[in-house]
């Protein structure tokens, strides 16, 4: 299978991950997908084909499983991966406004990555920090008790960070 253009040419070797799951059965499929996504950041077509060969499963079955679960992505993530919690507590405390502020500020829809590869946005059901609602998580770090204005400030800070790095 050929790689689609635009994907990074060099990927960490998937073989190492497959070796860790040697002689694995069907029940290793989800852990395998999770491991691959953990190292690659997403599931490429190539990776899916390789997993299929390893587990003797058709790619269609693997896509069937991978698309069922919210966790799996088929596009690389941005440098800053923003997860917006849309749980009940966050909703009641105004997470929609927070989400809209990010959407407008980055001109980015949930599930997508900005063209410069800096930001990716994801809506998650609940990250379990309801006491601090509304919450977002950027690369695993939590930002609590947000307002649309606070979010805009955070985005500005991140952009500044990028500029300083360049």
């Amino acid at each position, binding site marked *: 299978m050929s790689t689609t253009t635009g994907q990074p040419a060099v990927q960490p070797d998937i073989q190492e991950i497959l070796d860790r799951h040697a002689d694995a*059965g*069907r*029940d*290793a*499929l*989800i*852990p395998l*997908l*999770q491991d691959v996504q953990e190292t690659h950041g997403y599931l490429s077509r190539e990776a899916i084909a390789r997993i299929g060969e390893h587990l003797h499963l058709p790619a269609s079955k693997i896509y*069937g*499983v991978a698309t*069922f*679960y*919210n*966790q*799996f992505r088929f596009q690389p993530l941005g440098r800053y991966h923003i997860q917006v919690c*849309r*749980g*009940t*507590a*966050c*909703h*009641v*405390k105004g997470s929609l*406004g927070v989400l*809209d502020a990010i959407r*407008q500020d980055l001109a980015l829809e949930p599930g997508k990555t900005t063209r410069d590869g800096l930001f990716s946005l994801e809506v*998650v*059901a*609940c*990250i*379990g*920090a*309801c*006491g*601090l*609602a509304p*919450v977002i998580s950027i690369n*695993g770090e*939590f*930002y*609590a008790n947000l*307002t*649309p*204005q606070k979010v805009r400030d955070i985005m500005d800070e991140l952009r500044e960070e990028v500029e300083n790095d360049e």
Partner: protein
Amino acid sequence: MNKETTAMKPPASLNGLLEYACGLTPDLDEAARAGYEEQLRLLRRERTERPTIFVGAGTCGLGAGAGKSLNAIRAFLRLRNIDAEIVEVGCIGLCAEEPLVDIQLPGKPRVSFKHVTEDKVKPLLESVLAETIPTDMVLGQFTTPGVAPWHNVDRLAEHPFFAPQTRWVLKNCGVINPSSLGEYVAGGGYRALTKVIHTMTPAEVCDMVEQSGLRGRGGGGFPTGKKWKFALSTTSDRKYLVCNADEGDPGAFMDRAVIEGDPHRLLEGMAIAAYAIGASKAYIYIRAEYPLAIKRLQHAIAEAKDCGFLGENIQDSGFSLEIVIKMGAGAFVCGEETALINSIEGKRGMPRPRPPFPAVKGLFDKPTIINNVETLANIPRIAEGGAEAFAAIGSETSKGTKVFALSGKIALTGLVEVAMGTRLRQVLFDIGGGIPNGKKFKAVQIGGPSGGCIPDEHLDIAIDYESLKTVGAMMGSGGLVVMDEDTCMVDVAKFFMEFIQRESCGKCIPCREGTLRMLQILERITRGRKSESKFQALERFKGVMMLNRTAEVIRDTSLCGLGQTAPNPVLSTLRWFRDEYEAHIYERRCPAGVCQELRSFEIDVELCDGCTLCAQRCPVDGAIVGVPKKVHYIIEDKCIGCGTCVDVCPTHAARLRIPGAEEIDRERRESEQALSVFASGAFEDWHEGAALYRMGKQ
């Protein structure tokens, strides 16, 4: 130098201590006994040799900035060259006051402090190390046997948040070091497991759990002991135990807190459960969104294995147990037993028909028991204290305690554990501290997307499985989301339908398509006139008439719990807040001012000083007009109701426009006209529905 105990590996000498603590070596001589007792006292923190600083480092604590506080504490101690111990503990449950830091000086009881952000670390430590307790930050002091308490410091146990609670499952959360098996054992841990595997038969354990009256804490409320007996009585070469930690309910986080704060309690409960049903392999199915909990679990499993509480031939009893962590991949439906089994097997997480029940034919077609984290965390207590002691607390049909996650518009958000049968009002107003900012209580949502909203007039019901059902709600996993007068109930119903519609696995058509239709109906009634055609205006009424009927079909014809309870949020809000629905449908207004298309804003001419901020930030060109230093105006036809102007206005001149009685009347008349179109027979199918609806209204 400060030494940390986060990754403590028990030294070989700990084994003798553990055996002593579990009561396995009763015939020790006096000197050895005294030595062990002294070690246990140290582990129980009844005595410290140097200042000890406990940082609440659960996910919520870290979210509130505990990580930064921790660094500040380390830096402070290094700079002053103070020999102190830093312990990262789990969440004690008072999320609203995070970050929480406790300090225990030698010869003094431990004292809890709230809101210890990075900048407050230095003054706090300086003052406490000089033996002065800063009164503005103190939360309360622990009660330590044999140690004189601080003067003028309230006891933590008497704090209004903690006093009415009965903390059984959460006993250790936020108190002990979750990465230390020794501390868990010193507090009485693993004694129940030792007793069970040495003195009881599996059938006796099942009997005991059945007698205790423990019911599944994950939502269903099925008697746990009974379930175990099914698995015990099924003969098979292999049986499995699965711990369901796929806490998918938005608004619930008690399982995360238990695992992060006291992982060994869960492991001990699992070991007892596995022994009772005859399983030798157990899975913990946990959400991938809980990385810290997974880390703590991995550490705890390794530690328990090292000390002989898990693994092959536990304590020479012949009972072996292997525990494997399986990470969920994010699907709400996987909280359902059979869907969870499919997910562990590497398939799409779709439910299977029952029977056969998992207890008979489950994971890999073997008998499988699936229990929720909180259910399993209750087991050690039952095994240790006995079934009677457990059943002594609670109501007629629901025994023991229940952990609730308080969130939303409430003063003290956090985790509370109360005896079953406690009044809901007491949980919200005595423990939770009521509604902040002087707002009025409207409803509390209990049980997540499968549950319902309870209005003020029913807050005096006792919390148990049955009474909650009488008001159209259910226990669920125990998320309590509080809503005040600024919350729109139609919007809440829409939020849940959106969630369920997205999370429906797609197997049953009524659930897959029906929830989408219900969502569309709710979207239509929250839509403003600007964005709809005449046809759509009629569709609104058609939809509303079908709302109840659709809900019934989904409830009656879906396979799994998700589908059967999917309409609950709509049905319960429709039952208690019908007036809000009617305001949306007939008057096209949102009484709470939440639904964006049904609200508009205005600027108070008295207050506006013409700063132009609102006009700059308004996302619509020309919706706000005015020149600098002069009063600004909002053009209502262009306003999209986003509310940005209110957010940014420094003088609070921009505000929600409240329609006058005349305007509401006009809308009502127009709606009546639209209804009469149905009644005229022009739309035959709807005719009957429209007529019925009107009759119902009269």
